[in-house]
């Protein structure tokens, strides 16, 4: 199951239904989806949900660190997310904050490899205010070079706050080595040298805005308590003047990996050893079986109910945790396997056990009962995330950024239902090979207490 869905575990729904196989309920997503495309290309998706007086408004920009194709510009999508809070001529930074404060909104943003999302949760009464200030900054963002440079300090601070956690460095090293040309070579934060150079990139920031913050590259997602006609009236009022762009992205694709890569990473501070492996996997596609089959396979191999988990975590207790899976990406990315090993002397043993389980998955069919249990788990887990406007908007944003089509959520869960044991063995053989793998082994430097 995807990490996104894990994040939703803590949420408790109050209006969800579990699809039971009738024609009407074949779709996993239980709420009606309205989709309108404005003349300028803006994708407007609205989902009525029983949350009286509450509304979630998300703007999804289909640009993330994947779009950072030029050398020296890694991390720019994320940096730009910060600049979007720096104001316009109509609403300065302070005026923007004051308006959000006056409506008591929860407002923030995040950037991923493939997209950037700006989200607001507030009273339904504040809908027009939200659309006013959001449309304004997407069309008319304006900041000084001084503001730009100051914000670069906050980005470095964000990098720094994450740095003490070795997971970040492991992931940096893994990606840097696993990819040759594709922009997934760097993380969303970007290479440190590029982050340090950000204060000098004011002109490029204007280019970045001009390229990607365009209606045809964005989706506006509204979930909660609203009237559709009134909503569309307001959307047209505030977004119709947004001008289309014309930039096309050409992301360099990598050639297939031909040999295994292994990196030993010493860590200065105290830590348990960690083994992280990335197999070059498929990209997201809601019409082909590969990605959903990899999701199910990750449950077979690495979930808490897997044989490997039971052996390494519960019985022999060689590792503190192990997990594996692949996040949805627009282009082929990595199927990750991570294990935190309790004792350095067991690293090779743990690697061998992982290899053994993967090889077994290529030739030994999983039982029908086990497959049914996994499908049930995935279905319930998905449904449990749909309990509030923000959770729903997040889910829909995820699929809209991947394909532009919110129906992808139903398509992909429909594919899950069709997965067979042969599909699982097929993708295991296709993707989980040593020559297709990059491994980072992190151990504490000698001499650290």
């Amino acid at each position, binding site marked *: 199951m995807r990490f996104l869905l894990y994040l939703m575990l803590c949420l408790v729904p109050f209006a969800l239904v579990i699809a039971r196989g009738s024609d009407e309920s074949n779709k996993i997503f239980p709420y009606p989806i309205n989709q309108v495309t404005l003349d300028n290309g803006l994708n407007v998706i609205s989902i009525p949900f029983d949350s009286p007086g509450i509304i979630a408004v998300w703007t999804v920009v289909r640009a993330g660190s994947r779009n950072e194709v030029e050398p020296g510009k890694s991390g720019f999508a994320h940096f730009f997310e910060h600049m979007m809070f720096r104001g316009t001529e109509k609403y300065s930074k302070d005026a923007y904050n004051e308006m959000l404060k006056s409506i008591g909104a929860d407002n923030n943003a995040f950037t991923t490899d493939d997209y950037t999302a700006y989200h607001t949760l507030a009273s339904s009464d504040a809908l027009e205010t939200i659309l006013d200030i959001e449309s304004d900054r997407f069309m008319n963002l304006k900041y000084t070079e001084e503001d730009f440079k100051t914000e670069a300090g906050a980005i470095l601070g964000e990098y720094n*706050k994450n740095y003490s956690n070795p997971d970040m460095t492991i992931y940096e090293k893994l990606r840097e080595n696993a990819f040759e040309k594709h922009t997934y070579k760097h993380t969303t934060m970007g290479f440190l040298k590029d982050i340090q150079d950000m204060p000098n990139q004011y002109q490029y920031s204007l280019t970045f805005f001009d390229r990607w913050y365009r209606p045809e590259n964005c989706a506006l997602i509204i979930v909660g308590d609203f009237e559709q006609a009134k909503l569309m009236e307001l959307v047209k009022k505030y977004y119709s003047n947004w001008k289309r762009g014309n930039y096309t992205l050409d992301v360099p694709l990598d050639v297939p990996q031909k040999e295994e890569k292994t990196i030993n990473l010493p860590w*200065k501070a105290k830590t348990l050893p960690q083994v992280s492996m990335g197999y070059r996997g498929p990209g997201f596609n809601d019409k082909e079986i590969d990605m959903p089959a990899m999701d199910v396979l990750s449950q077979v191999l690495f979930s808490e109910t897997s044989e490997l988990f039971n052996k390494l975590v519960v019985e022999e207790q060689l590792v*503190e945790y192990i997990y594996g899976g692949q996040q949805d990406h627009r282009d082929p990315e990595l199927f990750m396997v991570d294990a935190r090993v309790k004792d350095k002397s067991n690293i090779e043993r743990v690697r061998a056990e992982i290899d053994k389980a993967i090889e077994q998955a290529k030739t030994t069919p999983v039982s029908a009962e086990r497959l049914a249990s996994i499908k049930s788990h995935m279905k319930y887990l998905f449904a449990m995330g749909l309990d509030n406007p923000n959770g729903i908007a997040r889910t829909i944003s995820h699929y809209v950024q991947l394909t532009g089509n919110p129906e992808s959520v139903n398509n992909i869960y429909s594919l899950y239902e069709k997965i067979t044991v042969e599909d699982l063995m097929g993708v295991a053989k296709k993707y989980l090979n040593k020559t297709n793998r990059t491994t980072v082994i992190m151990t504490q430097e000698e001499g650290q207490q």
Partner: protein
Amino acid sequence: MKRLPLISTLFLFAMALITLFHEASQGAIRITEIHSSNSPLVTFRVVLRAGEINSPAGKEGLNALTAYVIAQGGTQELSYQQVVEKLYPWAANINVQVDQEITTFIGTVHRDHLDAFYKLFTDLLLHPRFDESDFSRVKDLGLNYLKNSLRSTSDEQLGKQALNTMLYANHPYKNTEFGTVQGLTTSTLDDVKAYYKKTYTQGNFWFGIAGGYPKSLIEKIKTDFSMLPEVPFSEVTLPKPEPINNLEVMVVEKPARAFAISMGHPLSLTRKEKDFYALLVANSYFGEHRTFNGVLMNRLRGDRGLNYGDYSYVEKFVGGVGSGNVFPELNTPLRQQFFSIWLRPVQPENTHFAIRNALFEFKNFVEQGLSKEDFEKTKKFVLNYSKLWAGTLSRRLGYQMDSEFYGTEYFIDRIDKELKSLSVEEVNAAVKKYLDYKNVKIAVVVDEGKGNEIMNSMISNMISPIKYASPVSPNILEQDKFIEAFQLSINKEESKVVKANELFEK
């Protein structure tokens, strides 16, 4: 849908879902329930009125160890792995949250599987397996958390925990929620069993349930939990935290790229007191968590780009480090609270300046208070914003139980009630009465070998100019001249440099 004015509609959002809400305290076990017949989910929040403060001396962490062996262990019928396999197809989950005063077992399930889930959940609590294998696995987790994660891989959390040890040096709150390394190391499975027998009693259990459960379940809960020993709840006595004398600093050394800072002092009020709500508004103005509303955020990050974020709190707030949740955390109530300022890691060369900048703003805040205009804007914000906090039945249940812990009405309603009659004069008087910028404890996490340098710089009040990566406006530079020389009265005798490995040891 029809629209009502903002405040009332948001209020109704929470209420509309609920067909029954009451505290059923008759019978042996206390039960708080929020029944919503149209909810397909059921959430359990089962609170044990015991936390780290109940761990015996020398066995620090025993409370957490016991709770985790239960929540991540087996039942007398089923092994841990069999429990996991049962839960898996339902995507149901059972978690535990440990804290100083209470321990909360949290379970969520779709009502399709309620009966079977309830049996598992209560079997874990009432008939735990206490398997040696589960114990050793959980103990390893706890020790790794203290020895590696907390001391090494999360500087922000380390700073917060270091501040906690300073604020409560000779107080039951002094340890982490997971105790100490030595306490965990010496705890045995027999200790766990003994602690369970002594602590998991009818008087200590408090059952919270929300969602679409059958009403008959309440009677079953009462019956099932009546098998526990009938020992009444008794509170651990809390002394007053020791007074702080000027600025007391602890510099913690570990390999670090940037330096994390936490500072604060104990507070003598909680959600029960009226003045808490005055401070809630004042604090929102000064340092609202993860927003650009606060003075601290705007002056340190917004104007100067010093770091990623700067916030303040008038009660324990555990969200924000490794948590995506930006609203006040659930089920971490304390009888004694504290005020704190959290500066996310700054560039090493700006550490002294950042501490000065925060204390400079803190002083201005206490001395000048809020203007009438700032007060009105902030009050309106908190009134609206707090209505977003209880967006699910599970969260509402959590806030309700916390309110009962403090002996007050439902938190979100209390905020609404108190703020509507609050005046700027009351807020500023509360700020002056409860917040103290002169007597503060400060924890700073720095790179190895840098501790004495930072400490000496602070003690000697050395001028500490900020180093900018790029120019800022003249008016900021003008103010910097004052801040870089802002006098800090460090209590040299009560300040020290320590190694991270020395913390949380015993």
